[in-house]
């Protein structure tokens, strides 16, 4: 196993009386995509700001790309690229100038800069917009340009703070493709998001963070498996009796009552188990009105681990509501 590229232990950060991050430890392996998943105000951005040296380290220790954040901030800055949560493009500069400015901020040699700009504009499909002022770009184009900017210096680690916030579903998909292709070229990616599907789709490993603490860490599938293999939603003529009957089956790990019907957590592949469940219920003389089989989503995982619904947190998450609507 190689040395981790990001190593954080007991990192804590407070703003006055408010403890934004309350002692988190994790490590990110070279070449992986690692996600911080949590609601707004969970401490994700604070953690990223400390790791990118924009906030100074208050407690704990952090090493990024082999350099200590507290003692060698300049070396850390040279080795990373950042895409901020909000758009930070100068409205009165062209795409080319944005990249040129960034490259020379990092003291890239002239020739290398020119080649890299061509390469990146090609990657994010903005060749045609080379001399367009950024104020004339669409939201998705701006985001792509920012990703290109983050990659300008061939960073070892790319930090993405909510990269797809406010983008439409098609653009999000394309952003994911870019992020994946960047990762395949060997850049480690550290991502924060409050979109379940994003963490699920993109990352090798996910940390669920809430109230400044890491609640669970692991590959997305492993976190989901903590809930059981599959979820089976049933509506029957007699839910109470059906629930009792299912609890008697060894493959059923839990039964959760809903306003109409109930959800059974099962430890096996649900598609094979379902016919047996239906036979068993019919054996008890219970009629089944509705059946729905689904894999646990990151949404379910989040509720399972934090005990609360992510979407209760704030009104500014159209994406969460959207993905929920799609599943129904």
């Amino acid at each position: 196993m190689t040395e981790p590229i990001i190593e954080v232990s007991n990192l804590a950060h407070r703003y006055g009386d408010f403890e934004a991050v309350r002692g988190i430890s994790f490590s990110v392996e070279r070449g992986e995509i690692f996600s911080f998943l949590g609601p707004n105000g969970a401490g994700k951005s604070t953690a990223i700001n400390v790791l990118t040296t924009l906030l100074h380290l208050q407690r704990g220790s952090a090493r990024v790309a082999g350099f200590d954040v507290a003692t060698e901030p300049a070396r850390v800055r040279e080795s990373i690229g950042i895409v901020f949560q909000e758009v930070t493009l100068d409205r009165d500069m062209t795409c080319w100038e944005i990249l040129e400015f960034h490259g020379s901020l990092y003291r890239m040699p002239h020739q290398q800069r020119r080649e890299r700009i061509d390469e990146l504009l090609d990657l994010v499909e903005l060749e045609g917009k080379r001399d367009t002022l950024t104020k004339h770009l669409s939201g998705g184009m701006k985001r792509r340009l920012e990703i290109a900017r983050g990659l300008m210096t061939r960073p070892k680690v790319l930090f993405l703070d909510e990269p797809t916030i406010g983008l439409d579903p098609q653009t999000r998909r394309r952003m994911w493709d870019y992020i994946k292709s960047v990762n395949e070229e060997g850049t480690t990616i550290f991502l924060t998001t409050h979109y379940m599907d994003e963490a699920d789709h993109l990352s090798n490993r996910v940390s669920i963070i809430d109230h400044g603490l890491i609640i669970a860490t692991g590959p997305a599938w492993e976190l989901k498996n903590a809930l059981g293999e599959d979820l089976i939603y049933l509506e029957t003529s007699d839910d109470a009796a059906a629930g009792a009957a299912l609890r008697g089956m060894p493959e059923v790990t839990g039964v959760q009552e809903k306003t109409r019907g109930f959800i059974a957590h099962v430890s096996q592949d649900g598609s094979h188990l379902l016919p047996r469940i239906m036979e068993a219920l019919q054996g008890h003389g219970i009629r089944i009105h509705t059946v729905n089989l689904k894999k646990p989503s990151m949404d379910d995982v989040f509720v399972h681990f934090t005990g609360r619904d992510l979407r209760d947190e704030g009104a500014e998450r159209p994406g969460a509501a959207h993905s929920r609507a799609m599943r129904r």
Partner: protein
Amino acid sequence: MHLGFLTIYWRDMIRFVRFRTLLISSLVQPALWMAFFGIAMSANFTRLTTDIPPVPGIPNVGYLTFMAAGVIAMTTLFTSLFGGMILLFDKNWGLMREVMASPLPRDHIIFGIALSGMTKSFIQAVIIMVFGIFIGAEFFQGYSPVEVTFSILGILLFVGIFSLGFLFLSAAIAISLETPEPSRSRLLRGCRGS
């Protein structure tokens, strides 16, 4: 030597050139000021002061010449005050974060802004002088070419120092001004600490 401040300089000059309305108004306004007020007032002042005998040993200049020097100083003052305030806009729009996260030494931000502010003042001072001479100000009357060269260098030196002073003043104000959003101001405080 680290030439990072040139990057900041380059960016700020792009902004200066690209902001058309601001560019044109900042160049044309002092000239218009001189053309309208200078010529009108100088006619009046010349009429009023014909009765006063000249003080011996002190060279007499026309009102337009006297005023042109004031217009140069005033233009430099305002350009420089605005030049430093650009940092506040950068901060509010989040543009500063990119620079803060880069390995560029922090003092180069100020050097770059100071240099571009000075350049803007030079451009304006030269335009005002050329235009002043065009409409009849007598800057270098009776000077030899060598003396004229030295005078111009002296003017530029004065304009440079004057603009630097006000640039640093406005930059200091811009940096210490808190934005309404607390996280940003903390961000900057954190940056100063490292």
